[in-house]
């Protein structure tokens, strides 16, 4: 029912297409890539042609192949961060909201502290100092991304705690863990999905930005890294900057459109 609502909106349909394109690139892109993205397959800085539809970079590697390989890195990081944020956010938000009292106060102080730490600066400093790597990027972004989710979950849980079906369960002596898992979490899911969708888009952008600053994983091609390499050749090779940026924008736009359409379908426009 909800799925139909999402797809009935133009934004939802476009979002699904964009996300499907990215997913397709991540899953089968490397198979269809015309070349090995690390191999020299053309001249230095050759402009787009039939052999190299997105041109080549300064040492003669195919840009299209690199863009196709890059999708995996972006999605891997975004999924990893979302998973970390999901686990932390729900655990902390639900505990705080359900228990209340000083546990709530303590958890919320911690959440606020994490929320004021400037995420971008924190990530830049940690990754620059400890060396780049996908694991570190996922952990740093994950541990700074959960607060918004925790707050939303806590608010929902507090509101739901007062609802009849929850009160009834409590009165019947159901254990707290059971109530949270069986009664609260399923009802939380729509809110969590909307928040997570927005987070997913932000993380894609953050990952690209870190890679643009040279803080991506050097072993994994990513769109931000490609855009960073383009910076030195803006004047002579526009194609180096255009295509990786376009790939990021389409992906993030797709995710955001989908999240918007989903929120609208839930009646939260």
């Amino acid at each position, binding site marked *: 029912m909800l799925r139909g609502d999402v797809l009935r909106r133009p934004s939802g349909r476009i979002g699904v297409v964009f996300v499907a394109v990215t997913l397709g690139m991540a899953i089968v892109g490397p198979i269809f890539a015309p070349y090995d993205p*690390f191999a020299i397959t053309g001249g230095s800085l050759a402009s787009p042609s039939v052999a190299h539809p997105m041109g080549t970079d*300064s*040492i003669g590697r195919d840009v299209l192949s690199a863009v196709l390989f890059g999708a995996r890195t972006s999605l891997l990081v975004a999924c990893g961060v979302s998973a970390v944020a999901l686990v932390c956010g729900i655990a902390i938000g639900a505990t705080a909201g359900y228990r209340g009292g000083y546990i709530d106060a303590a958890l919320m102080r911690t959440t606020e502290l994490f929320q004021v730490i400037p995420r971008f600066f924190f990530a830049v400093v940690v990754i620059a100092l400890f060396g780049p790597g996908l694991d570190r990027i996922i952990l740093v972004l994950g541990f700074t991304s959960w607060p918004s989710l925790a707050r939303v979950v806590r608010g929902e849980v507090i509101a739901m705690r007062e609802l009849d079906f929850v009160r009834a369960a409590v009165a019947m002596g159901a254990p707290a863990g059971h109530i949270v898992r069986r009664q609260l979490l399923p009802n939380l899911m729509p809110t969590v999905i909307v928040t997570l969708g927005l987070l997913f888009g932000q993380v894609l952008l953050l990952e690209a930005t870190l890679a643009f600053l040279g803080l991506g994983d050097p072993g994994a091609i990513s769109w931000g890294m490609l855009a960073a390499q383009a910076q030195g050749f803006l004047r002579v090779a526009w194609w180096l900057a255009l295509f990786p940026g376009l790939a990021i924008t389409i992906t993030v736009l797709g995710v955001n459109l989908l999240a918007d359409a989903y929120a609208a379908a839930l009646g939260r426009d």
Partner: protein
Amino acid sequence: MVLLAYGGAACASERVARDPATLVAAIAGDPGQLNPAITTNGGVHTAAGLLYDGLLALDDSLRPSPALAVRWDVEEGGSRYRFHLRQGVRWHDGAPFSAADVVFTFDKMLLRYHARTRASMASSLVSVSAVDDSTVLFTFRRPYAPLMQQLDVSEAPIMPAHLYAGRDPLRNPVNVAPVGTGPFRFVSYTPHSEIRYAVNDGYFRGPSALKAVVLRIIPDEDTQVAALEAGEVDWLFTVPGPARRRLAEDPRVRLVRSALSAGGSNCIMTLGFNLERPWFRDVRVRKAIAHAVNRPQFVERVLFGEGRAADAPISSGIAFAHANDIAVPAYDTLEAARLLESVGWRRTGTGPRIARGVAGVKDGTPFTIGFKALPSQIVYGDLLRAQLHVVGIDLRPEPLEQAVFAASVFTARDFDTAIGAYCNGTDPEIGVRRMYVTSSIAPVPFSNMAGYRSAEMDSLFDRAGASLALPERRRLYHDIQVLAVRDQPYVWLVETSNLRAYSARCHGFSGSSHFAATAACTK
């Protein structure tokens, strides 16, 4: 709307007029302070060079000529040097220059804070002393050949003792309002924007034809080029590769190559093997990698034609020592494959080679090796990865910031291969020795990276460093290079050069730190 208003007005704006006798030079970064005697930071040396003098100057072929010292005597077979100083030189603030300034600069600044001078001289130097107001004596424990190459303003600028004595040189406010003896004097320093100098009318070589020099901080190389093309800037210290051809064809621009550079001269981009790793113990593996490297492709695609394929372990810029008759392994992927097979690295599919009976390596291990580099040099790794892939070696480039690179490569020795811009300097003693002798396997950046040990090599360097006779030194350095190629602890990739660009309205530049002292500009 605001955009349109901005844009329209910007088009209508006129260029701000400027004095033709003012030279505007672009520098890439804010030096932060202008005392070159307490740091080896290339940015500080580039920005501050015009303010100071050394005891000697080096011309474009690196021959010493008089500067603050007018004459010198080499005594006791090269273990004592006596410098006679120029009379009547004054600091920019009017105070007289004397031997005390030279002694102070070496004792309290260069030998303490200038890492290069300290590392090369401190262990052999007994003292720097003033015989009288105009004579300075350098006394060494043993004959010390490279001294004459280490006394120009880019290596050993002389600082004013009367402004620095008795104060912490790192925190002295004179560092940002400097006083020197050089062809230009300090006027103003606007952090992150520009530094202004005016001509020193009392300069001992006579005043420059220029009235002023402005150093503009423009971080992006492309923007520097755009500013040169727009006539906003007259001099660039670096020319980015992709812009080189365009500038060479531009009639408003001239290009000039310089032997000297504040960051180090005669640099060779060098691939180093960690000889402690089992897969590099066999010289055939090192030779195979040397054969797999296509050096002309590095010149073409990384340097964009600016530089040359290295054809010997010592840079061609040190003409007396460079050996031009040595057969370094040529590009030959078949030979590389043959060597790897002979060691036991077997090719099974399209992936990396697999060890089958390689000494010290477990059978079945894939030939996958790391490659550490500074972020600015990671492009060498990208190309090397592609070239080695052809012969079945999987190279994984890893960019590391300088602090981490130095600590992991030189202190922890935790690397397989790494690349360094080994600047040979003006004498092999300065920048070549440290790559090969056993005593410089030390936690020091850009020392003996490979961990190469050879008693024969150590003895050759000791004899070459102690000798003052050029033919003998030439012969010894030739032997050193033959031995280095035989043992192949490194692969010498490309010699980088220092290309400068300047506006055709100016002429008379030199390659030294005083690049603008003899220049003149017209409308």
